[in-house]
């Protein structure tokens, strides 16, 4: 653990990413206190006002304050990111543990299910499912989560396959611990590191997916402000109101980039082999 923090603190990119992630989370939590305007209140006298002191990022085609809408949008993005990745990780952990621990038929079935889900292009499956459902923020979270658990399942299964042969696991099985207890108390805690990395990298991917769907007009429906649907509405007026398109896109970019840098940093810090090699190469390049 100490090595992990030491390695992470040496990775400047990851630290910057982590700081931005914390900052964005704080913004999202404090949104109701920070937002200067009601995000959904239109004002016909202020349609498409450029950024100014009263409206930091301008107003949109209905005269709503873009800065406030983006703050509320950050809550949607983060909520979708966390919840959908939570769903995916929960499914992945359960299926991966079952497959890895039991082996045999169960393993075969779960892995075929993974193969099967991977045959569908993700966005096609999302669109097909959404075509049949009433759009809401909850369906978006559920659908992104339910189509994204395959990676975690594979990771957890692989960890289980190597961990279940280790002495401490075999020992606890021999003294009569139940399968559930062995999985829950002994194997799972040791298998969670790669899941953590996958989750950190899954959140930005989910945020991108949500904003893409909202941009197409199939995602989180209005009046909820999300970065994707602000962009979707703003693209019509991109030549008059560039601020409607530029800022939400930048917000997505910065958010996704920060999570990715943090996630990669955690991965490098957790992998002792890479760390060792890193040290060697750093010494060489001076």
């Amino acid at each position, binding site marked *: 653990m100490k090595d992990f923090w030491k390695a992470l603190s040496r990775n400047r990119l990851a630290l910057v990413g982590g700081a931005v992630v914390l900052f964005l989370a704080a913004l999202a939590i404090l949104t109701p206190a920070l937002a200067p305007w009601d995000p959904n209140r239109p004002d016909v006298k202020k349609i498409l006002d450029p950024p100014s002191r009263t409206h930091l990022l301008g107003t949109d085609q209905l005269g709503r304050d873009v800065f406030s809408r983006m703050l509320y949008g950050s809550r949607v993005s983060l909520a979708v990111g966390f919840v959908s990745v939570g769903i995916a990780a929960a499914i992945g952990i359960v299926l991966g543990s079952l497959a890895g621990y039991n082996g045999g038929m169960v393993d075969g079935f779960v892995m075929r299910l993974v*193969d099967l889900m991977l*045959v569908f*292009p993700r966005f*096609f499956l999302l669109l097909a499912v959404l075509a*049949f459902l009433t759009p809401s923020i909850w369906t978006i979270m559920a659908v992104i989560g339910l189509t994204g658990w395959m990676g975690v399942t594979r990771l957890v299964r692989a960890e289980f396959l190597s961990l279940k042969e280790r002495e401490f696991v075999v020992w606890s099985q021999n003294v009569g611990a139940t399968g559930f207890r062995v999985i829950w108390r002994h194997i799972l805690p040791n298998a969670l590191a790669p899941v953590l990395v996958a989750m950190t990298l899954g959140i930005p991917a989910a945020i991108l997916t949500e904003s*893409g769907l909202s941009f197409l*007009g199939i995602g989180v429906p209005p009046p909820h402000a999300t970065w994707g649907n602000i962009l979707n509405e703003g693209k019509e007026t991109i030549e008059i109101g*560039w601020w409607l398109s530029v800022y939400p896109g930048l917000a997505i970019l910065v958010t996704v980039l920060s999570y990715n840098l943090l996630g990669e940093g955690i991965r490098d810090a957790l992998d002792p082999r890479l760390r060792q090699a890193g040290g060697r190469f750093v010494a060489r390049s001076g």
Partner: protein
Amino acid sequence: MFWYVLRRVLIAVPLLLGITFISFLVIHLAPGDPVDFHTGDLSPDSSAQAKQMLRKQYGLDKPLPVQYWNWLIRLARLDFGRSFAPDGRPVLQKIGERLPITLMLNVVEMAIILLFAVPIGVLSATRQYSRFDKATTVFVFMGFATPDFWFALLLILLFAVHLGWLPASGLRDINWEYLSFWKRHWDFLSHLILPIGVATFGGLAGFSRYMRQSMLEVVRQDYIQSARAKGLAERVVIGKHALRNAMLPIVTILGLSLPGLIGGSVIVESIFAIPGMGQLMVQSVFQRDYPVIMGNLVIVSTLTLVANLLADVAYGLVDPRIRLGGRRRQ
């Protein structure tokens, strides 16, 4: 080799059934009677007609297992029904027109991505933590993090609207018929530059990071040390011995990106109005054109399955360890 191929084919059969089963589940996602729900926003007239068609296509009044079985039989005859759109053309025909466009676009795009990603990955692995490594890391991460729809909008604004250098959408100019031979080629190319540029920037991260990772692992192997020890030039060690082995996982990742290759980029195709599979999918979702949606889902995933199978066979041909060891390492 025969047994290896046979085993792969036998694994593919239940997957094919699974594809149809999952697609069938998708139809029944809607709460209540799916027919009442989907046709809600159509006019009463076309709605009644569409309901009839839906009921006939999916036999929705029968018990579920019967519905599924009947649907399977129709699929086996390649009967995907007709589109709900006013043209009412067979689904298969609509998809057949669009698949080649998407495939062409994605194969070119994939080739360009590999052309950049492999050298970037190799160089940043052999100089881990150098300035080049850090700069390319940030660059490819920027590419991954930039929402493609946003980047596309900005590029259209700059190159199509302000500078007028490149066309903003479609694949051909409206005056295509009257262009000379060479102008036609340039016209077609110029329509591809922006969409392929956007997709390449976004796709660079995945491959270059895998390449870097794989190369980092390979250069630590003993056989690389022995190649160095016997006095080979570093260029040969990296460019020949290490690169060949480091490329193997890339082939696997290439197999995993097949669904995207066949399905196409939904967002890029929508923004640039490219008449491919992705655009067809989005349009049919908006028009609630269920036969096309279901046809798309089943056909794209089945083609992916077939392509995966071929990739597996090719992989087995190249690498005897896989053929003999059973499963491909993933």
